[in-house]
């Protein structure tokens, strides 16, 4: 027997967040194609925005899944999300321009099978299991693809594996200074996996409110985007990386202030403690 510990009361329904997450991520990933059309890498920051929208959706999916007592801790959901997502995303990059849609489809196929295995073979019997694991695989794939776009400016297999290094003014092709060859994908993997599981892990409990958790997810997303943007200095021109860094920083500062405000709203009472004063005569 399964007991649902918490129910979503009020707030935005999950379906709406899911649809908004899919559409926003896909649109942002495709807007980065402006890089190819304009032959620059100025629009790489759209990858970061795709990361943020996918993470907001993913954190709410984790809330739906982990509201049932799955007994394994919230972080495990983030790990399986990116474990299955990285597999879907890397195959999807082979499909060229349709890569984001391919990531969606491959993620759904992988997620449904993993969901079936855990729900039926492992006898979890949780109603939301199959749908949640499916969504999480797509979230993982979209987030990693967004990081790839942010760091390299493209989402095709060639742009993730082929770069160039300049030695004495001569540009040489290099497979090492790339998203995959330089193992930046491993950093992106954990940046995303931590950001998708943290919001619900931090906000769960009887005082859970939807807007606070989603704001925390956006804050984690922008913080990850900022870190990834700094790493992108190695792969994209400095101008593009600076744009991504500034957008990430502004987004993080804004969402952090909003999140602090919401936390104070939801707290029973709070004291704006000052540093311990220096007392004379001791």
């Amino acid at each position, binding site marked *: *027997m*399964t*007991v*649902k*510990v918490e129910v979503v009361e009020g707030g935005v329904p999950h379906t709406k967040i899911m649809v908004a997450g899919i559409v926003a991520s896909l649109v942002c990933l495709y807007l980065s194609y402006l890089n190819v059309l304009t032959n620059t890498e100025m629009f790489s920051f759209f990858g970061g925005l795709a990361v943020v929208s996918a993470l907001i959706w993913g954190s709410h999916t984790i809330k739906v899944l982990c509201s*049932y*007592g*799955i*007994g*394994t*801790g919230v*972080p*495990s*959901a983030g*790990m*399986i999300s*990116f*474990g*299955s997502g*990285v*597999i*879907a995303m*890397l*195959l999807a990059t*082979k499909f060229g321009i349709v890569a984001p849609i391919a990531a969606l489809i*491959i993620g759904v196929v*992988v997620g449904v*099978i*993993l969901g*079936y*295995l*855990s729900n*039926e*073979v*492992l*006898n*979890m*019997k*949780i109603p939301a299991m199959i749908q949640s694991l499916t969504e999480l695989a797509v979230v993982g794939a979209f987030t990693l693809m967004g990081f790839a776009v942010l760091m390299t400016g493209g989402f095709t*297999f060639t742009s993730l*594996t*082929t770069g160039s290094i300049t030695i004495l003014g001569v540009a040489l092709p290099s*497979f*090492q200074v*790339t998203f*995959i*060859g*330089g*193992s930046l*994908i*491993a950093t992106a*993997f954990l940046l995303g996996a931590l950001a998708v599981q943290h919001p619900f892990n931090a906000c769960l409990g009887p005082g859970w409110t939807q807007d606070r958790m989603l704001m925390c997810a956006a804050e984690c997303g922008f913080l990850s985007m900022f870190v990834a943007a700094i790493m992108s200095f190695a792969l994209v021109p400095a101008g593009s990386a600076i744009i991504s860094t500034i957008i990430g920083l502004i987004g993080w500062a804004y969402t952090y202030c909003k999140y602090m405000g919401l936390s104070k709203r939801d707290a029973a009472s709070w004291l704006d403690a000052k540093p311990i004063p220096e007392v004379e005569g001791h």
Partner: protein
Amino acid sequence: MTAVAAKPAAGSALNPTAMVVGVVLLLIIIGACWQLAPGLAFMALIGIIVGGVLVGFGVHFVPVGGAPAAMGQAPGIATGVAMLAAGGGLAGLFGGAWAASQEGLVVSVVTGGVGGGLMMAITCMMVNFIYVYGMGIPAASGKIKVDPITGDTQTEYKSQGTEGHGLPFVSFVGGVIGGILGGAGGTIIYIMLLNLYKATLPTMMKATEAQILPIAISAAGIFAIGIFLVNAVLTAYNITGTIEGFHDPKFKRWPRAVVASAAASALCGFVAILIVTM
């Protein structure tokens, strides 16, 4: 019903229909791989399935305590299955990956196993230090009366109202076995994919083997981590919560995890192989 009463739902019963579906799925994927890419890629898929099953089976040995263990109310290491498996298995995977650059398959897999086992042994020992000298609690199992390895009695040391506490010797041994199996499994997945990528990427990307080596290593590594984590979390779903080691009644659930791990590894490995064969 309150959150405290809401126990994890998974029972210990087998679902025969689902098990058959899982096995059929496994055979379909193996057959598809045989049709699409016999030879090296097919061997890689078999290796990935073996590695995934080792990971899934090995995680059952690891004494996972979770939040109750942090409060001294259940035996085991005070964190979740996924975290422990990632710690032990990835430590082994790194050791094995290091050995893979200079040695053959057997030495690398053994190195991976030793790395994972060593990581779990250190973790278990430090956990017991903290339990005994930090929290002041003795090690006692709640599931058995006598330690099957040392023969020490357990019940006298178990506090009332708890499921046992600390890390008994049998759990320590289980943790080391789990680390060995997980590290070896992760290393097999990595080496199989690395050999496949080293053989196929040069023609696909029109470059020499030395040039594509960073791509092959990085892609094989990230796939190995991905497949490892999928297997670890699926096994965590099988255990649901805490397990003491191989003497725990929950250990008997392993057939389900083996079928699920085999099917999941086959699926993920097939996708990883499609990248170079498509």
